[in-house]
């Protein structure tokens, strides 16, 4: 059965699309305009949840990797691959939305801010992950190697962040802290957006692992 033929998935998709529309409306019309930053600041209602989704995804690549090595069940590998794909997509979005905000605020599209830099490094690490999946050999071996790489990459995240943070200590930017100190009406929409992106992530994960499952079944029948 196709994924969106199931009533529950179809309903969830419809609800998500509606909620995203509402979210956009809230961000545009019902959030205060921050002095000096104006419309550019509003991208953070999307940029931070997108970043959260990316890191959540990569965290679960590690978790699913550990589960695969322990249980040796391919469903964990499919989940890991799905999470890696979603994580990389959202990382690319972070690297796109970040400069969009940065250009009017910082005057240049890119500076070596710790979080952006860590995101860039992780993006490159996961390009390597997909290269390993492509060139690593037969799927049974690749599943194991991808699991190992997912674990290594995420364990490295805090060390990367710490070293980048103190690499250029003069560059510090904590927009969330600034936001928390702003007048009310910001945190509510922000957490709504964050929750929505998390549910969206779950939906994307389920959909993608479903398609990978079908692909695997087709391969095992036809190869």
């Amino acid at each position, binding site marked *: 059965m196709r994924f969106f033929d199931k009533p529950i998935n179809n309903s969830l998709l419809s609800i998500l699309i509606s909620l995203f529309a509402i979210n956009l409306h809230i961000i545009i019309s019902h959030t205060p305009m921050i002095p000096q930053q104006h419309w550019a600041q509003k991208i953070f209602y999307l940029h931070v949840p997108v970043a959260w989704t990316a890191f959540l995804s990569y965290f679960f690549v590690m978790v699913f990797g550990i589960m695969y*090595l322990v249980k040796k069940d391919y469903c964990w590998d499919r989940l890991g691959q799905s999470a890696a794909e979603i994580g990389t997509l959202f990382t690319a979005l972070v690297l796109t939305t970040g400069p969009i905000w940065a250009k009017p605020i910082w005057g240049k599209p890119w500076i070596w801010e710790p979080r952006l830099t860590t995101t860039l*490094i*992780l993006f*490159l*690490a996961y*390009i*390597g992950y997909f*290269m*390993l999946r492509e*060139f*690593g*050999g037969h799927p049974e*071996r690749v599943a*194991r*190697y991808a*699991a*190992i*790489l997912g*674990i*290594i*990459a995420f*364990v*490295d995240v805090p*060390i*990367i962040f*710490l*070293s*980048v943070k*103190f*690499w250029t200590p003069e560059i510090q930017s904590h927009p969330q802290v600034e936001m928390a100190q702003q007048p009310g009406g910001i945190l509510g929409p922000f957490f709504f957006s964050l929750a929505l992106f998390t549910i969206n992530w779950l939906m994307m994960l389920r959909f993608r692992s479903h398609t990978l499952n079908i692909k695997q079944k087709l391969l095992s029948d036809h190869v």
Partner: protein
Amino acid sequence: MLVNLIKKELLIELRSKQILVSMAAFGLSVVLIFAFSFSVSQSILETFAPGLFWVLILFTSVLGLHRLFDYEKEFDAFSLVIGAPVDRGTIYISKWISGWIYLVVAEIIIIPLFVLFLQLRWTQPILPGIGILFLGNSGIMAIGALISGLAMRARMSEVLLPVLLFPLVTPVLIAVTKATTAYLNAQPFILWQFWVLILASFTVIFGLLGYLLFDHVTEE
């Protein structure tokens, strides 16, 4: 068994001389390229020297890491050691340590020529420099040996290895460059001990991970 495995690695390298010769020759070529490429004032060159040096060492170590598992593949010698009653985590440690040894030997050749051709001044006591060098090598080889094991059986392994390694080794690169700069500028240790801590933590964490995960790397 660890000592025997390291002896085996060193014996094979003594016979073939592939790793050391390629690392040293490559390192020297890059030093020459640096010398020709940077026509800037001496003070600017000395500012960038630590970064240049560690980029050079990173590229040189990739060469060594690739060869570390290459001879295991040639006659499927790897099946001998992983089929034997040898702890597979110990195999990883032996690769890590022997890679570290090759890098140190290559550096003994590269460093004097790096200083000579770039006409650098080195007035600091040698021991802290050696400490940073050894720690940096440990960090690179700890994660390098594990990644090299992953890439060993893949197609395009010579391309895959640096693509996988470079993003993950950035904390080491940042830490050693910062520590080396501070050391060469005679800054008190308390100002750069953080970077030594990063290097030590990285080495311990990835050394442990490598030991625990290498079982899964060795099986086909």
